[in-house]
């Protein structure tokens, strides 16, 4: 019997579109009372009313309608004139996920757990100043630097954290000098940052930082009374130390060598304008409005339960409105959390922000070398460890190297679990390309890495902020222009 090629293949009619167009993969979520947002895997979006959405899905859109044109331009449908859509989507997706190959860019050195402050919301369970056994030693510091340069990432960032890292400045100096020495061979783009309360900053430290291009980030919670209310400094004034430090850094190192972050305490909720105005008064052009996380003293003091996610979202939206108004009045000011999300919305390459990745940034976006030589998958992971939960501990500098850590089945398992594309509710959510996994938060609040998103404060926060941003982008042209300038 002769078998012809045609017998093994379906005829052309089998592949013909069911209507004038075919759908491309899309996720949809309600935006507000009357509109839906549709996104695709590369982060492009379209906002539609319910009727248009139904027409799109049921192949009833007229090819000459504006909705058809918008959906076609952003790769939500294709027809005979746009068969290249699949190749284009693959190209864009490749660009978006390319950063996965650039592991691990952020290396956090917890050089000491000692701190001179006694902040009620401290999430790292700091120790009192005089306990030298909470400092990183020279051997572990060298081993950690060796591990930094095993990462294939072309951009490497070393961030010094604590406690208060300047209390162990000798180890910072050692790490910086050794990293520079090793980098003469590796030629990476190396960034060095100290996260400090600036109480212990000296001329000698500033001179060293100037010579080695080290920058600072510091906590500034708002006006003096609010800042000092939560950031207690026995025998001192935390606000005065922080603001004096900020001015001194700018004087010696330059205007852009210090960034500020704020943490929302219950007392902040009614003062968002005053907080932002304080940043303006201190000459900042950016602010990161952060909510409290459920770790360390924030849990022990029950502070984290004193406001809800809904309270924080109201605070955040009021703050964003004020920041937009400042921009309209001519003062350039950026909110950093919105900037991360907007980069994901407008930018083809997404964002490298370690706390909003899928899979989670655990180990592959950032890694932590603790004061005792322990290696952790994230900063929040080491905070959880101080509370007795060692889920995110990947090994120890005495026994492990970069390869053993990165191939640790524990890490691979955690990355597998935190791919949003396989997480219930997230896999169908239109905000997936703009969001990320927060396994440490869900471990702390629900006991597993994924959590049930219907009960997740993290999910509620993400949905509320993303909805607000998209509505502003769609309905407020001046806000859209300002947002675009932040990306």
């Amino acid at each position, binding site marked *: 019997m002769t078998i012809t090629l045609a017998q093994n293949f379906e005829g052309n009619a089998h592949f013909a579109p069911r209507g004038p167009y075919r759908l491309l*993969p899309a996720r949809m979520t309600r935006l507000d009372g009357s509109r839906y947002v549709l996104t695709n895997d590369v982060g492009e979006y379209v906002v539609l009313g319910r009727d248009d959405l139904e027409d799109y899905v049921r192949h009833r859109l007229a090819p000459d309608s504006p909705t058809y044109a918008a959906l076609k331009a952003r790769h939500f449908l294709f027809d005979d004139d746009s068969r290249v859509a*699949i190749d284009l989507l693959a190209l864009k997706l490749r660009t978006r996920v390319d950063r996965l190959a650039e592991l691990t860019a952020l290396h956090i050195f917890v050089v000491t757990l000692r701190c001179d402050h006694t902040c009620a919301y401290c999430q790292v369970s700091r120790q009192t100043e005089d306990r030298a056994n909470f400092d990183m030693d020279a051997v572990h510091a060298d081993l950690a630097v060796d591990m930094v340069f095993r990462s294939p990432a072309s951009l490497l960032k070393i961030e010094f954290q604590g406690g208060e890292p300047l209390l162990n400045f000798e180890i910072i100096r050692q790490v910086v000098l050794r990293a520079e020495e090793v980098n003469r061979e590796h030629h990476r783009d190396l960034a060095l940052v100290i996260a400090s309360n600036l109480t212990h900053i000296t001329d000698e430290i500033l001179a060293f930082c100037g010579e080695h291009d080290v920058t600072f980030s510091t906590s500034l919670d708002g006006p003096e009374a609010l800042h000092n209310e939560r950031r207690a400094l026995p025998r001192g004034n935390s606000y005065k130390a922080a603001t004096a430090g900020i001015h001194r850094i700018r004087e010696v190192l330059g205007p852009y060598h210090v960034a500020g972050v704020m943490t929302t305490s219950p007392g902040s909720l009614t003062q968002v304008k005053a907080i932002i105005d304080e940043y303006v008064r201190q000459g900042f052009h950016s602010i990161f409005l952060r909510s409290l996380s459920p770790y360390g003293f924030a849990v022990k003091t029950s502070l984290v339960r004193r406001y809800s996610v809904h309270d924080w979202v109201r605070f955040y939206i009021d703050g964003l409105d004020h920041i937009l108004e400042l921009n309209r009045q001519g003062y350039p000011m950026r909110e950093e959390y919105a900037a991360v999300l907007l980069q994901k919305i407008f930018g083809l390459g997404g964002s490298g922000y370690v706390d909003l990745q899928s899979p989670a940034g655990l180990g592959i976006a950032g890694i932590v070398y603790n004061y005792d030589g322990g290696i952790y998958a994230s900063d929040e992971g080491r905070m959880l460890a101080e509370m007795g939960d060692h889920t995110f501990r990947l090994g120890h500098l005495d026994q492990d190297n970069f390869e053993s850590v990165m191939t640790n089945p524990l890490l691979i398992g955690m990355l597998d679990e935190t791919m949003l594309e396989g997480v219930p509710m997230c896999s*169908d959510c239109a905000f997936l390309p703009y969001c990320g996994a927060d396994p440490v938060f869900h471990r702390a609040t629900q006991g597993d890495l994924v959590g049930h998103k219907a009960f997740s404060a993290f999910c509620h926060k993400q949905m509320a902020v993303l909805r607000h941003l998209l509505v502003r982008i769609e309905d407020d042209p001046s806000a859209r222009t300002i947002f675009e300038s932040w990306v």
Partner: protein
Amino acid sequence: MGAIRARETTLDTRLYRLVAVKKAAYRMAERCTIVLGSPNGDDVPITFSFPPNTSENAAEEAIRLFHQELLDEELRATIHEETDALRALILAHTFSRTDLVER
């Protein structure tokens, strides 16, 4: 009005796919637990079980939201059904042209 603990209804599986019903039920977990019974022909019995002290208004609102979610899930299922193979094709194109393994 007094508290309400449970409500029962049925859904016609000729109108709603079972996968859509299950996904909509999962989404409602913060407001109520939804238990699906064994299908009787085309009908699936549904029991909404509410936390203690749920008012009748809150229960009605939860049921309304469930039906809204169900319509959304039906649309999602339609999109998924039509585009699943295309998504696999796009992913294949994406990763076939990278050198991730060599790196």
